[in-house]
């Protein structure tokens, strides 16, 4: 899997196009010729999800919820409205925030496809859309968590959320110890995508913070 690292587009034109690349190129030409798509709009759509929307959005939401109890209350009551306070690009879907506590761990999956809260996390990573995660998250959440984010104690309740509607979930992770007095910006730096899906905890990287 790690061989993918340098395939970011722009860098692959010196290699012959493979099957899907050829088909997509032919399809785009056809749709442009028929007047059904404008290539500039395609560029804009791609740019939106490569540079404007992504997990940094969600990290800001989480950090604010950690420092501002009134905001946290709004987030848990109506996440869509609380997220809109940041002006993030939504798609009209409803979003529900799920709070992790010392006794409850939440884990989000879409077993049927790839439902994911785009406005706060951007496009889902490959593993989230993969057969292993979709198959296992509902039947063996503790096994998945053990592999990815550390073991969950027996007395902690694991709640799995299978996203099957235009209603998406954002996990509000626990604020890690040792971050007392940090600013919202500092906190946002340490909130990860995987913590907002529920497969990892937020930890304090060595040397970060003050």
């Amino acid at each position, binding site marked *: 899997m790690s061989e993918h690292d340098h395939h970011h587009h722009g860098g692959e034109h010196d290699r012959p196009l493979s099957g899907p690349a050829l088909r*997509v190129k032919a399809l785009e030409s056809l749709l442009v010729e*028929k007047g059904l*798509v404008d290539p500039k709009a395609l560029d804009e759509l*791609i740019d939106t999800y490569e540079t404007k929307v992504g997990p940094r959005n969600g990290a800001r939401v989480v950090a604010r919820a950690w420092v501002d109890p009134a905001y946290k209350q709004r987030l848990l009551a109506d996440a869509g409205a609380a997220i809109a306070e940041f002006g993030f690009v939504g798609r009209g879907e409803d979003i529900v925030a799920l709070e992790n506590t010392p006794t409850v761990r939440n884990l989000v999956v879409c077993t049927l496809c790839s439902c994911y809260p785009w406005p706060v996390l951007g496009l889902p990573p490959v593993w989230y859309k993969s057969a292993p995660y979709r198959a296992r998250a509902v039947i063996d959440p503790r096994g998945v968590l053990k592999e990815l984010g550390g073991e969950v104690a027996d007395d902690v309740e694991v709640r799995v959320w299978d996203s099957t509607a235009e209603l998406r979930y954002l996990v509000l992770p626990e604020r890690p110890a040792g971050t007392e007095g940090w600013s919202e910006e500092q906190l946002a730096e340490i909130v990860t995508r995987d913590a907002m899906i529920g*497969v990892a905890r937020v930890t304090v990287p060595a040397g970060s913070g003050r």
Partner: protein
Amino acid sequence: MNGVHDMGGMHGMGPVEIERDEPVFHSEWEARVFALNLASGFHRKWNMDMGRHSRERMPPAEYLAATYYERWLYGLEKLLVEEGLVSARELETGRAGEKAGGVRPLAVAEVATYLRFRLRARLDDDVPPRFRPGDAVVARNIHPTGHTRLPRYARGRRGAVDRDHGVFIFPDASAMSRDKKPQHLYTVRFAARELWGPGAFARDSVHVNLWDDHLDPA
């Protein structure tokens, strides 16, 4: 449909592998097919649910072997032909027979607004709920051959309504006949042991979004 896309609870798929510093797209064509899907949806010839169903209809062996965006490519080609935006011959030859009449493409300036409202599934229709939070329910043991948001692992299982989210488009109908069939959407909590048997942890649960037409009183 009882397809391979309905993966919840399957075994043998291997470990979950998280790629470090994963790019949004792994190649140029993935980005293009992503954008082509969204830009083609602008013509409103199909809805989100039809889009999902188009990818589920990929033959099972191909579906499992395909990458995510190969499924998007498959579904888009299918919908473009089925809904008459391009002909099968045009798709095969890659040459346009004639320009599409009476349509214009999504413009750059419209992208932000288009994205903002694309997925709205909540409806204002005044439909009474069949269930209230706390109600004991059983997911219907049904096997629709078309699109359904009721995963196999929940069918016939007993749960409790956790929340009522209000009235939403019903995807099972919307994918097959464009009928919105407005009804309440709930989060239903199933105990892990109800779904997976005594080997599961007693305190764990799986929450599934289900609609009125998926549920009966228990």
